[in-house]
């Protein structure tokens, strides 16, 4: 992680407030994109079994919602309008995320060692060695989307963006993507510093948002980490730094600055079979043992779509109902991010409804797919 507070504003790709808003929207999309895969894996666990895995995934999912809230606070602070209801906001799974040199697919699938491997890749710390390394060329040919590796034409590109299949492109520069989520937030911090420096020279500020639109800690806690009310440059940088380091760890450490175990290391505990505790080195957890039962999992059919459910009218109806509940939930939190923060409290029971609705799907076998269960499609 190379996020820092007082970097000179050199090399910022963000030159206008509109571009900053565009980046922050991508941030919301990115933070949310991890939720469906985490939730699918979480609720695929047999109840009463796999308590350790259950709690590890649950905490990470709750903290992704915290990150979503923090990015929304930054967006509101700089006069933007968070919108979680755009058609492309929820990706079409499998989607691709930018993390490290590999551009890998993120699937909706049950808890498994492959799923855990993906989660580790999502959260993997990838500090850039130099300025040049912060970006990786976008190899469109490798994705089979163009034959010569160049970016697709603008209308095709717009369609890909609309479908939410590709995440992590540098906005406005479809030939490049970010090395890591950390570098993506680093770019936003640079942009904020650059734009705020310029604004201050002109005697103004980019922090023109209505403070009443901020989500403050009374509306959100649990899962570790506190909401930061964003009112200026320092709090904006603090919020984005927390988002980045809570995923990947502070300066490569296991813990973030609020003493929370970073997501990468939380997941690694499941791989290593031990919990981390204070004083441990990365890769060498020395806390209590933990157990993972890889077989105590419902066999959710990966990346299931409504179209796969034609032979199961009852499951199809339940899957549609789930998508509707999920859309209602996103609409509620979107309203919370748009001036009605107390709606976050009411979203709690919607989350219970989502849980119950997911469980209904995940615990039912699919007709015509022996050994596979249904699951949420997240097609909104």
């Amino acid at each position, binding site marked *: 992680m190379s996020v820092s507070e007082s970097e000179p504003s050199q090399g910022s790709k963000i030159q206008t407030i509109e571009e900053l808003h565009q980046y922050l929207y991508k941030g919301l999309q990115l933070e949310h994109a991890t939720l469906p895969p985490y939730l699918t894996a979480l609720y695929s666990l047999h109840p*009463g079994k796999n*308590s350790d895995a259950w*709690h590890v995934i*649950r*905490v990470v999912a*709750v903290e992704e919602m915290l990150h979503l809230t923090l990015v929304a606070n930054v967006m509101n602070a700089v006069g933007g309008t968070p919108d979680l209801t755009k058609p492309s906001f929820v990706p079409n799974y499998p989607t691709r995320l930018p993390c490290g040199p590999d551009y890998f697919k993120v699937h909706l699938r049950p808890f498994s060692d492959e799923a855990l491997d993906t989660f580790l890749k999502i959260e993997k710390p990838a500090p850039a060695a130099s300025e040049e390394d912060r970006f990786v060329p976008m190899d469109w040919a490798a994705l089979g989307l163009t034959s010569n590796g160049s970016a697709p034409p603008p209308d095709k590109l717009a369609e890909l963006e609309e479908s939410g299949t590709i995440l992590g492109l540098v906005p406005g520069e479809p030939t490049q993507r970010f090395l890591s989520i950390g570098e993506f937030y680093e770019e936003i911090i640079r942009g904020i510093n650059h734009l705020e420096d310029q604004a201050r020279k002109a005697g103004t500020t980019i922090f023109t948002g209505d403070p009443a639109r901020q989500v403050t*800690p*009374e509306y959100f*806690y*649990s*899962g*570790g980490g506190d909401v930061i009310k964003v009112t200026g440059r320092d709090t904006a940088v603090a919020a984005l730094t927390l988002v980045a380091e809570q995923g990947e760890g502070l300066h490569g450490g296991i813990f973030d600055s609020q*003493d*929370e*175990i970073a997501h990468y290391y939380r997941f690694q*505990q499941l791989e290593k079979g031990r*919990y*981390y*505790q*204070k*004083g441990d080195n990365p890769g060498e957890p*020395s*806390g*209590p043992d*933990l157990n993972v039962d890889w077989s105590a999992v419902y066999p959710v059919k990966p990346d299931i779509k409504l179209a796969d459910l034609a032979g199961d009218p009852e499951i199809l109806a339940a899957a549609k109902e789930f998508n509707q509940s999920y859309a209602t939930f996103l609409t509620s939190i979107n309203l919370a991010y748009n001036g009605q923060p107390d709606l976050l409290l009411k979203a*709690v*029971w919607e989350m*219970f409804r989502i849980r119950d609705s997911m469980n209904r799907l995940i615990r039912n076998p699919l007709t015509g797919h022996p050994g596979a269960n249904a699951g949420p499609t997240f097609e909104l």
Partner: protein
Amino acid sequence: MTSYDDTDQMIFPAGAATQTSAAEAAKGEWDAVIVGGGMAGSIVAEQLSQAGYRVVILEAGPGKDLDLAEYESYLSRFYGAVIKDNQSPYPFNPNARMPRSTDTMPVHPGTPRDDFYLVQEDKYCTDTTFTRVLGGTSMHWEGKALRMLPEDFNLQTKYGQGLNWPLSYDDLEPYYRQAEAELGVAAEVEDQTYLGMYFPRGYVFPMHRMPPSYLDQTVARGVDGMRVNLADDDYTLQVRSFPQARNGVPNAAYDGGKGFVPVGAVSTSQVEEGERCQGNTNCVPICPVQAKYHAGKTLAKALRKGNVKIVTQAVASKVEINEQDQRVTGITIKNYQSLDSDSYETYTVKGTVYILCAHAIENARLMLASDMQRMSRSKLIGRNLMDHAYLLSWGLLPEPAGTMRGTSCTSGITDLRGGRFRGTQAGFGVDIHNDGWGWATGSPYTDLVELVDKRGLRGRDLRRTLGNQISRQLLLAFMIDLLPDRSNTVTVDDRYKDAIGNLKPVVSLKIPPYTMRGAAFARKLATDIFEKLGAEDRTTYDKDRYSAVEHDGQWYNIVGGNHLAGTHIMGTNPANSVVDHTQQSWDHDNLYLVGPGSLPSIGTSNISLTMAALAFRSSTHIVRQLRAAKAPATVRS
């Protein structure tokens, strides 16, 4: 062995509950020996640990860490239990039994039965309980955290009833605040400033109040402004929020603007859960996410420095006393091997001071089994047993009112907790139960049986009828004061022993006319409230139950409150009490009896907050005694 994480409030040091054997504990010389790892014992241990003393806690319950896996084993046992009583999450333990409400029935001398723990030979039997696992009764309590009223401390002077305390509300007020911080109490000062209760200027509770349920609001529409005349005084009723030891929204103004950090689920690893109540509505016995306070949260802190050790499966069976100077010389424990076997080994654990924190009934039982009444100048050990007398009234509201949503109880009526009428009849508080008629009728399970077996409903009809019926249920629980009375007792009797030969407690509790006058008034008030709300009164009392009490030609059922108190009351001299205002024994100067047994009266507040405040207060006196006795030992890590 892993080292302790000394920064995270919610980390329970791994292995802390199992790594000290009884044999090791018996070899050591401790600054303090504490009997009981519940709320009082944990608070005292934590306070002594802070002061640098070496403490051993002797816990009768099974020897597991309070980690998430253990807690989840309690939860899954609770989910699977057919009868979800207060003890249903906990394994049956023949070596340290607990009373169960389902075991309540009179025992006839000579009966060869052993399906009970509390021995009751009277016709009236209380179904009261307390819990014997690490964490004590805080592992089943509801979490209401009311202060006592200023007038509760001098009831005798004011109304000629009960006993005065050797302490006033003023004396206890700072310790109430300390207890509210430790337990994490959610409330608003403006809601709690009534009947003389006061708070220092600028004080706010750690967290904002729990949101009143829709049911509370429905009841308030009928009750708010209702007028009641009692002993020539007029009272205006209103529905008021209860303070609760349950995580809510932290108050940013707490502690001069520093705010409050709620303590969530404890475990041996970072789990980040339970920092806010989710409204699961099964607060009693066990909160699924640990948003409700339990003593494990204090115990985790107490264990952090490494100078507090726990020995589990260690049932205190005798307090050893030097007959010459009357000082305690040790606690003899029976350390049983497992829950499946009655084999045990006996050890005596020694220290400078001894603190019995085993709850009102067990403290008395242990002292009586140790023949300490012989040395008591007051002869009051085991006397003045108290518990709140609960009268339940239930009705069916005309419209669905959201019953079964929110925490078990968020609001009630508190206007009749105090007043001049207490000269002739008991005061009471009223709980509005968000969990329906369960306590009175066994709902919702009984509703289901009735709808299926008697009315033949199924499918959609069943679902709709069940939902409609349950969401209209209103249960009002009247928590009625029961004054100290020497004839309400805990005793022991050689005929009644448990599996490892410890004497069982014999309890005799009668509901006096003073309390029953309050109950009769409460019953009348319930019918008035139901009428105001248009609710159909479904209350029935059964004179054939063990809980039946007759008053003025009417039968009532008075059920236990699990607020046991008063078996070693505090007072002003060795003739009128067992302990002084610091909870130090009058008769044994290195012995403290810390817990609800010390309360000389219980008024109309759930006892835990007051007990916790007293535990903090006594801790400062114990530290003073230890400091005088010896310099603090160096802490070894």
